């Protein structure tokens, strides 16, 4: 009869879906997780990939194991490869037909696209020279990869069509490079797919680190690679697009972002408000709406005449993380408040340094990140609601020399180092919910400070709060929270005393 206590070996192996962990088993085999992540289909978690190196390198090559799980953490498939020892899996996407995983061999500076079917069987492989970029899904027809070399003025887009079981493409792949006007640098970011068009936000600057940006909207027919439109978004205001979505009923693209007065040279404040453009598939702007902080938003927020919050606790800037549509067609914009503040520690260090004869060596400014701000608009972009979710203020120390940097660039720095508490937004179309998740280092009476995962879920017009305590690094049990399928998160629970790891899906309550 089967033994109750699982073999010691299997425990080592099957509980190995840890993160950043390495393990030795069978006394000789070294196994290390190189990378892992969620596989997304149209921004929805559809599965997971884990990439391990196993054993020692021989002649510059190593054996790797790729494990693909579905959204319920069930095994789909496991594949073994032999690759250069500095190979990493850097991106994964699923379009309903193919999973495409992008690998990077750091030593050879090569990248490989591997195409798998829904059973995790390898269909095709393309090996190319490496260019940094980010991949996204285009309907069921394929994937686009936005590529940009650091020293290049231009940007490139590669279209990877879906591959069938015979490794054939239904649509031809293509690769196009787009040049900016002379002596400018251009970047492109994916915004949305509108029928057969991929819609991109193109940012054009004089220099790579310049703050004056000219934004354009580009539409490319992904079936041919031909540009359908390329329009300038600057008009009576300076517009900074944030997000776009395709309105299938109206066959139009809605573009939402921040707008600034035309005399603002650098984007150094909250701007004048939010804009919404309605654009047809030929690139014509059909309608423009502007919501001013000092006008439309004043009914919902206490704003002074300069567009800043009146109360001390609300003074500051807004960093917009996400704008998306709720299941009822309304629009939700998620922002987080931040502001510059004097860093007493930095000032003290510099004073001490000066007294000792040295120069300034620490930034005297810090960034304070505090409350979440959720803006809810009706489908016609009229304001429905604005609410603030209080959370613990966190301080981000800046490196030396950042004191006089533009506040929005500082926000980008904060985002790059993971200084904001916002995590992600998950939507469950079946249930009609939108859950906004964030971390908070909170203090509860009678307990020491600890991290907590929080979710604010909009359902049936109401917000409900849910919380999962993560604990502190010194606790006997630690949790890590990862994105899960709609309405869920993945909890990774590590018990230090028992040296056990469990991974499971947990519902977000509302």
């Amino acid at each position, binding site marked *: *009869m*089967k*033994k*109750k*206590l699982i*073999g*010691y*070996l*299997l425990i080592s*192996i*099957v509980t*190995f879906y840890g993160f950043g962990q390495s393990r030795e088993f*069978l*006394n*000789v*085999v*070294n*196994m290390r997780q190189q990378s892992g992540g969620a*596989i997304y*289909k149209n921004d*929805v978690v*559809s*599965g997971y990939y884990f990439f391990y*190196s*196993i*054993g*020692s390198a*021989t002649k510059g090559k*190593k*054996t790797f*194991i790729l*494990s*693909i799980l*579905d*959204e*319920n*953490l*069930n*095994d*789909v*498939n*496991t594949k*073994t490869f032999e690759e250069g020892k500095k190979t990493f899996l850097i991106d994964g996407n*699923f379009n*309903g037909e193919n999973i495409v995983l992008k690998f990077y061999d750091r030593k050879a500076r090569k990248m490989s696209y591997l195409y798998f079917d*829904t*059973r*995790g069987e390898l269909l095709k492989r393309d090996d190319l020279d490496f260019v940094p970029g980010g991949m996204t899904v285009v309907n069921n027809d394929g994937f686009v990869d936005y590529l940009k070399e650091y020293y290049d003025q231009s940007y490139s887009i590669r279209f990877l069509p879906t591959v069938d079981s015979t490794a054939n493409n239904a649509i031809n792949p293509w690769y196009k490079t787009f040049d900016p006007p002379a002596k400018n640098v251009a970047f492109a970011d994916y915004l949305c797919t509108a029928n057969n068009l991929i819609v991109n936000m193109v940012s054009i600057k004089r220099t790579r680190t310049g703050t004056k940006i000219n934004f354009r909207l580009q539409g490319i027919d992904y079936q041919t690679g031909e540009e359908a439109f390329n329009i300038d978004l600057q008009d009576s205001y300076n517009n900074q697009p944030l997000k776009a979505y395709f309105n299938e009923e109206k066959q139009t693209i809605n573009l939402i972002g921040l707008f600034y007065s035309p005399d603002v040279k650098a984007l150094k404040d909250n701007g004048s408000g939010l804009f919404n453009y309605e654009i047809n598939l030929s690139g014509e702007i059909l309608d423009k709406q502007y919501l001013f902080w000092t006008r439309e938003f004043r009914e919902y927020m206490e704003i002074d005449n300069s567009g800043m919050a009146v109360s001390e606790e609300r003074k500051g800037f807004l960093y917009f993380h996400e704008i998306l549509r709720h299941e009822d067609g309304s629009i939700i914009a998620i922002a987080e408040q931040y502001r510059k503040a004097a860093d007493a520690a930095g000032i003290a260090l510099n004073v001490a340094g000066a007294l000792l004869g040295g120069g300034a060596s620490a930034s005297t400014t810090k960034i304070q990140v505090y409350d979440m701000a959720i803006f809810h608009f009706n489908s016609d972009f009229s304001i429905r609601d604005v609410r603030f979710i209080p959370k613990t203020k966190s301080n981000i120390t800046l490196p030396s020399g950042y004191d006089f940097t533009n506040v929005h660039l500082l926000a980008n720095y904060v985002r790059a180092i993971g200084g904001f508490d916002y995590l992600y937004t998950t939507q469950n179309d*079946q249930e009609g919910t939108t859950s906004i998740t964030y971390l908070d280092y909170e203090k509860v009476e009678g307990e020491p400070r600890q991290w907590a995962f929080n979710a604010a879920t909009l359902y049936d017009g109401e917000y409900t709060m849910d919380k*999962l305590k993560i604990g502190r690094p010194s606790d006997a049990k630690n949790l890590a929270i990862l994105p899960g*399928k709609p309405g*869920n998160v993945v*909890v990774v629970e590590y018990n230090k005393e028992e040296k056990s790891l*469990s991974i*499971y*899906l*947990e*519902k977000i*309550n*509302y």
Partner: protein
Amino acid sequence: MLRKPLFLLTLFFIHSGFAQNNNDSIPAESFIPTVTEFYNLNIRLKSNIESISIPQKNEAKKIYQHRKSEIEKALKKGEYLSIEFGKGYIEEIYQEILQQNPSLTQPDLLLIDRDWIPNAYCTSEGIIALNLGLLHRLENQSQIAFVLAHELAHGHLDHVNKHTEDMIKSFSKKELKRGGHYEDLSKGDVSAIKSLIYKTFNYSKKSEEQADSMALELIKNTRFDFTAYREVMSILDSAKYPKYQDLLELRNWLFYDEYPFKEKWLRPVERSGLYNENAPSFIFSKDSLATHPDVEYRSKLLDSLFSNRSLVETNNEYSAKSQRDSHFQFMVDKEIIYSTLFNKEFAVCLYYLSARMKKFPGESWHEAVLGKLFYELYQARKSHTFGKQVPSTVPAGHWLEETVTFLNNVRMSEYKKLTFWQFYSRTKIEELDEGQHFAFWEVSKGINDGLQHSLKESYFQRFPDGEYVDQFQTKE
């Protein structure tokens, strides 16, 4: 010889342990380990360590220590029932086998594991356990006797420790080098890893064959029907399906006038499309990880032990289902519902409860247990442990599909309402046990505050020294 006070203390604990467990009531109380049990575990550990025959003593010692500690935890958590459950029905089978086979190595403890999965096991810590899930399927004493004899055979042949030590030895660097595997493994040759792991499972299958054939010899010496192995194999073959296979039809009975059933609770969850029916278990093929030979093979092997087919007789007294067998089964069928709730196997609990409610409608204890189940689900959602206790999906066509879909679709606030309405409309307060009464009180908050107040008063009247007395203040 123990000193008198300690002797008396030990006797007290032994006596109180037996006294508490000697009952026929459902739910049965957990087996309460005494000083003796923990003492025996220590003795066994010492003996296991002393008899390690391989050079890798430290590694084997760690495994034995870990296993002992896991068993102690399971005992303390109440994961076992005493074999006194069922008024000694199991005990007498066990005694018959031992008495007719006096040279058989005896375990220290024979227990019933609350686990619903049809299984039984033997540990090197001197414990043999039969799962409630297996007793739920077996139909008479002869069938149970075969299973018990099989586990006793494992213990007698010391399979567990032998297997453990062989495994440790074969995976030692020295042995790997001697076998020519070391270089391949260190390079990360996945085929070499798989082949070594599969080998350990093959070894396990050989042990099962030995235990099967020895079990047959043990049973032949007893009054039980030794051909019962055939029925046991058939039962094991169908073990992946539930005993009562019927559609739950939850919407037909899980409704209340004030809180009707919601169709969205049975709405299938959309899948991403990633699926592989032949998915491996990480790098391993699932079939190769089976620890037992397949049932057909086992049956044929056992059949082959009879050179003369006329020896295959049935003993009517112990192969037919007696009234006593039926009564024991009845008790197990009830107890398994409580035990799955105790173990927080909520999906299985709901399935068994629903099946039983359909078969025996109108039993009031069912309704109270259902209320408690909903309450536990509500708590699991609140504390974010739901995902550990309820699978998020099962394969299409699985017997738990409807149950799991339902459990995952109900929201936390809806569990609270289900709990309330279940207690309110289907139970009588005076028939609720302490835990159920408290649960009813807690969920009444916000739904019927007046009732909540009177529930608190009635709790203190019914259970003045109850275990939930302090919690009223905390939860208010």
